[in-house]
């Protein structure tokens, strides 16, 4: 059948050359690809590249709204490295990020493993499992803050009823308990993501592998160690990387729960950045902290890429 376009000569057929000039500038496929994706690439470059350059440049300026703004060299960084609060924030950030990643891993992996082993109600369980992901972190901070409340909190009541404690604990006043509380509030919203990532990996493992292992006399622990965990290493590492990088810079839960207290026990780098922008108006220092945050996150990311590449070489 001859299409309408053919008759009109859109395809540059011989009959149309009289009425319409032949199309000379038909883009090649790769030109078309470049043209279509160019706006998006420009968007990325503008939206990410420009701010990146600005933040690095600012970190070399003294920019504090008190004294005139001027080039400062490494001044901001040198001051930062002599700053006790900065190092405290670095330490807290690592504890917070590691703690959050660990709890996320513990719950996420266990849930994924269970979900991969059940035959019925998979959709039901998986949907319920996802719900914490829908909760904004700032709200999660409030919810957990309310549950951890020393006078009216439900967690104290549960622990008392279980006989785990004798008197109500003041979670947000004790430094180490406060850190534990904010870690819980942060990890809670990250568990679903790791669960579905690992679950997708587990479901890709062919059942024959397990059957073969069973014939060779393997029990469930052998299977976990020699089949399940090695086979989901890729998604698992990916999930752990994303969890650790995300929790490294996440402050919402801390913001609504402890504001960095008590006595700066939960004060993290992100909070220090925001304080320098919002409260102290020291933009130069905020820039320097931001650049340090960037460096730390790249460090975590490169460690992960290294492990992943090593894995690939082996297999």
């Amino acid at each position, binding site marked *: 059948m001859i299409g309408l376009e053919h008759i009109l000569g859109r395809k540059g057929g011989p009959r149309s050359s009289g009425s319409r000039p032949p199309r000379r500038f038909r883009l090649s*496929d790769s030109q078309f690809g470049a043209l279509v994706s160019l706006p998006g690439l420009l*968007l990325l470059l503008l939206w990410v590249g420009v701010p990146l350059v600005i933040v690095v440049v600012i970190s070399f300026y003294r920019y504090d709204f008190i004294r005139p703004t001027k080039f400062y060299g490494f001044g901001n960084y040198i001051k930062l490295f002599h700053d006790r609060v900065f190092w405290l924030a670095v330490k807290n950030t690592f504890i917070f990020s590691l703690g959050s990643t660990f709890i996320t891993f513990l719950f996420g992996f266990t849930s994924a493993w269970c979900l991969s082993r059940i035959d019925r109600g998979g959709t039901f*369980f998986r949907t319920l499992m996802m719900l914490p992901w*829908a*909760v904004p972190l700032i709200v999660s901070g409030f919810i957990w803050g309310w549950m951890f409340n020393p006078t009216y909190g439900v967690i104290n009541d549960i622990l008392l009823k279980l006989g785990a404690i004798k008197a109500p604990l003041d979670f947000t006043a004790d430094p180490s308990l406060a850190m534990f509380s904010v870690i819980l509030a942060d990890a809670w919203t990250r568990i679903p993501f790791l669960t579905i990532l690992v679950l997708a990996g587990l479901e890709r493992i062919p059942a024959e592998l397990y059957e073969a292992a069973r014939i060779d006399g393997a029990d469930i622990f052998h299977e976990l160690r020699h089949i399940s965990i090695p086979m989901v290493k890729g998604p698992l590492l990916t999930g752990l990387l994303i969890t650790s990088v995300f929790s490294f810079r996440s402050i*919402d839960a801390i913001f609504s729960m402890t504001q960095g207290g008590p006595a700066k026990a939960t004060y993290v780098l992100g909070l220090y950045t925001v304080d320098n922008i919002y409260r102290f108006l020291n933009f130069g220092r905020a820039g320097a902290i931001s650049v340090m945050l960037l460096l730390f996150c790249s460090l975590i990311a490169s460690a992960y890429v290294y492990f992943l590449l090593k894995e690939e070489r082996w297999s």
Partner: protein
Amino acid sequence: MVLRRWAARIVDHKATAYVLLCVILAVLLFPIFWTFITSFKSLEETFHWPPTYFPHRFTFEAYFGGRRGILTGSPVPIYLMNSLIISLTTSFVVTAAGILTAYGLVRYPFKGSKAALVLFLLTRLIPPIALLLPFYLILRYLGLINTRTGVIFYTIYLCYPLVVWMLKSFFEAFPGELIDAALVDGASRLGALLRVVIPTMATGISAVAIIAFLWTWNEFLAPFIFINSDVLKPITVGIYYFVGDELTYWNTLAAAGVLAIIPGIIFFIVAQRWIVKGLTAGMGKM
């Protein structure tokens, strides 16, 4: 050895997975349950010790209680509207732009298109909080501080790389023969995208749009720093000012929390399968 065999048999048992799941779910869902329960209590009952696990007096006063109800006596409806405007706009812009970008990069590769894709992935690892300061300065320069447009400007940056990366996996899995068939039938390359690719991938694309929507909806820090006027605040920022110095109205705070998490819960219940697919497609093999 005997101990291990027993342990293996217990762990291996089918029921173990169900029992473990129920325990984990009880822990995971308790905070959400508690927020709902608290929002249906009266203020006096929230300060009751020991706490009541089901409201003695089931009441909607936190929602509709006149001056003290969040829907009748507070700016929460305005906050929700702002959240909706910001999230919908971001989601739409990012998805539309992302579709074009991913289509070009995946279907019609050119020199450097592989590198461009990796670039999208790498930008996801940049902590957004590190770019808060430059974005603040840019928005101030453009006169967009204290506007919803300014926040949208930032949330586009937040979602765009992830959206392109997720769509990329969808496009890679898309059968190329369908596009070729459309081209043979005389469709242009853009026409093939509009008439073949997008309709076929509608569910996947909506999942990506939902993820972008939720990610924007949950954002707190950027609107907190960029917006001052009460009438422009999204719900995440508005809720932050509910905590009082002397007395916190926990029932109304919980009610505001319920409203803030409802869109996410609805989306997950309706489109769980597709959201999961979108997320795992984008990240399973990063």
